């Protein structure tokens, strides 16, 4: 009799809160109640736990059981609390080591047969538990590889409830016939074997792509159909350096939340290319009770590619503005908020007009002027202001195709990018930033390495003319630093700034 307690994790977005699960047995008619703002799935846990316990040879005490999930005011969703509640409830009847239970977090859903089923979001949940000081975590057998990605925490993959009870000292017979519930089949798309050397011509665009990769800058490509915009964008992840531990963990956590099977740390930067009919919720994330990460969260630490940007709804494009600035997306719902990282690199590709031939040499555009304006008008001024590099692409001519000349491979480009990033990291070592795209404006303009007025002159002129906003001013400086990093120089020169300004305002409008 008395109170027994253990731990579980409630997830709101990527942020996990450790929840204390306490069970109390009172000398009253048998009843099983869960309090502390459970949702429907969590409220139904009583039924699952009752049957799972019975079928595992464990008996729930036949008295009134009250399970409280604390902090009680935090809404809790899903079936991941089943195991923690079951363990706390069973422990009230005695036969289990209370201390062992009180120092372990339990994550997992119970089946009626007592087997433990995998749940989404195990990685962020274990991370949150480890951060709050929990040293031992019981997870579903199918999720154990995912949980083990978190260091400095002991991970125990449990097949069934009896396993967990035995771990805490209960006398239960082992049933060797129990088969673990397998992990859900993940979308296992093998990485596309694409190389930058397959791109014919388009030297300026390739250079823009390398600069974008070096600094993590946002990129807009315009050009007629068939110029190779999509082809170039698909090759961006291949020239980005592999993710470091922290970034890879964030990317894996989001994959886990989205329900994908996570078995190892994938260091390839994620690449998300939502279709142009995607809704705002699909892009930023949403859902009424359980908030799922959207495309921008899944693209965090990687690339978000919006092909046919002119076909996207203007509202979905504008939804990107705030996450582009802050690097995170906060989704508000009644009673709770969920926040996801959104540190993605945006790549937009669009035709110049609906027919695709506007301003293309040797082609005739058949669009009325209003259609052209409406098409590009989808890309709002505020959104374009957040783009660092604009590249206008042209159709590749026969002469360029025939020319046999050395072209950059992805490996060479990646090497350049990594060298540039190392230079940037060395320069920014005393600051909170690592990439040029992250550096704050005041540091660029007034920091220790701020360019002298002579170098800044083209920018000041553009600002005075009104062709550049102050935000655009900072963005040009960031790109200029990436150009300097790629060139292996420690100071900004007029050349870098001029070139960056050209990249920023590369498309005549």
């Amino acid at each position, binding site marked *: 009799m008395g109170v027994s307690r253990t731990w579980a994790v409630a997830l709101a977005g990527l942020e996990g809160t450790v929840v204390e699960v306490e069970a109390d047995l009172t*000398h*009253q*008619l*048998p009843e099983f109640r869960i309090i502390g703002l459970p949702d429907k799935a969590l409220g139904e846990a009583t039924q699952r736990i009752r049957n799972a316990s019975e079928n595992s040879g464990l008996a729930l005490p*036949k008295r009134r059981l009250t399970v409280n999930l604390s902090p009680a005011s935090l809404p809790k969703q899903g079936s991941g609390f089943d195991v923690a509640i079951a363990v706390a409830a069973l422990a009230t009847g005695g036969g289990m080591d209370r201390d062992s239970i009180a120092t372990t977090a339990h994550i997992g859903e119970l089946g009626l047969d007592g087997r433990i089923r995998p749940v989404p979001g195990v990685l962020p949940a274990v991370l949150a538990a480890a951060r709050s000081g929990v040293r031992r975590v019981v997870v579903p057998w199918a999720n154990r590889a995912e949980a083990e990605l978190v260091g400095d925490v002991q991970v125990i993959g449990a097949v069934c409830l009896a396993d967990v009870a035995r771990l805490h000292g209960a006398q239960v017979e082992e049933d060797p016939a129990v088969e673990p519930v397998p992990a859900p089949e993940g979308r296992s798309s093998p990485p596309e074997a694409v190389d930058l050397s397959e791109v014919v011509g388009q030297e300026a665009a390739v250079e823009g792509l390398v600069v974008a990769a070096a600094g993590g800058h946002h990129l807009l490509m315009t050009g007629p159909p068939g110029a190779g915009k999509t082809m170039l964008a698909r090759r961006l992840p291949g020239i980005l350096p592999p993710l470091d531990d922290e970034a890879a963990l964030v990317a894996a956590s989001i994959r886990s939340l989205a329900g994908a099977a996570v078995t190892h740390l994938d260091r390839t930067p994620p690449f998300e290319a939502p279709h142009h009919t995607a809704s705002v919720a699909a892009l930023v994330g949403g859902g009424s009770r359980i908030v799922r990460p959207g495309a921008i969260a899944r693209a965090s630490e990687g690339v978000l590619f919006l092909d046919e940007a002119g076909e996207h709804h203007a509202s979905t494009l504008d939804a990107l503005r705030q996450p582009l600035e802050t690097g995170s997306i906060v989704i508000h719902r009644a009673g709770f908020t969920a926040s996801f990282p959104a540190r993605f690199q945006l790549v937009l590709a669009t035709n110049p007009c609906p027919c695709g031939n506007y301003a293309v040499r040797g082609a005739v555009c058949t669009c009325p002027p209003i259609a052209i304006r409406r098409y590009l008008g989808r890309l709002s001024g505020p959104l374009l202001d957040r783009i660092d590099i604009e590249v206008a692409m042209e159709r590749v001519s026969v002469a360029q195709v025939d020319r046999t000349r050395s072209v950059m491979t992805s490996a060479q480009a990646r090497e350049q990018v990594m060298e540039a990033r190392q230079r940037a990291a060395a320069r920014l070592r005393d600051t909170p930033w690592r990439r040029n795209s992250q550096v704050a404006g005041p540091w660029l303009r007034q920091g220790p390495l701020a360019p002298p007025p002579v170098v800044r002159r083209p920018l000041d002129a553009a600002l005075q003319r009104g062709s550049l906003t102050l935000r655009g001013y900072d963005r040009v400086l960031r790109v200029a630093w990436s150009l300097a990093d790629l060139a292996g120089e420690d100071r900004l020169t007029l050349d870098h700034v001029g070139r960056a300004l050209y990249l920023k305002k590369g498309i005549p409008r």
Partner: protein
Amino acid sequence: MAAKDELGRAGEQRAAAHLRALGFDVLDRNWRSPAGEVDVVARHGERIVFVEVKTRRSDGFGDPLEAVDARKRARLWQLANAWCAQHPDLARGRPRRLDVIGITGPDPATGRLEHLEDVPWV
């Protein structure tokens, strides 16, 4: 008499003995009204205690205590009121209490007995 009634009768016998051993003064047994039946009415100190007795041969169909659900308890409350109305000299001014006794075993005389005191009516 059906086998189940016989079992119930034996269980009530055992419960009454158990209550007497605890110092309860059994006032009434199997008191019937149109609304139903109260198994045992007893006095314990200042309180009038209404006791519902449930007997099961085994817990294959669940624990006997689980059978006393909210509906059953609500009916017991009404029965308690009816009993008090009929026995004003015994009940007046005395607080009422509900106890539930569950007996599990093939023979109620030796089976496992569980006694829950002061069970909420609703």
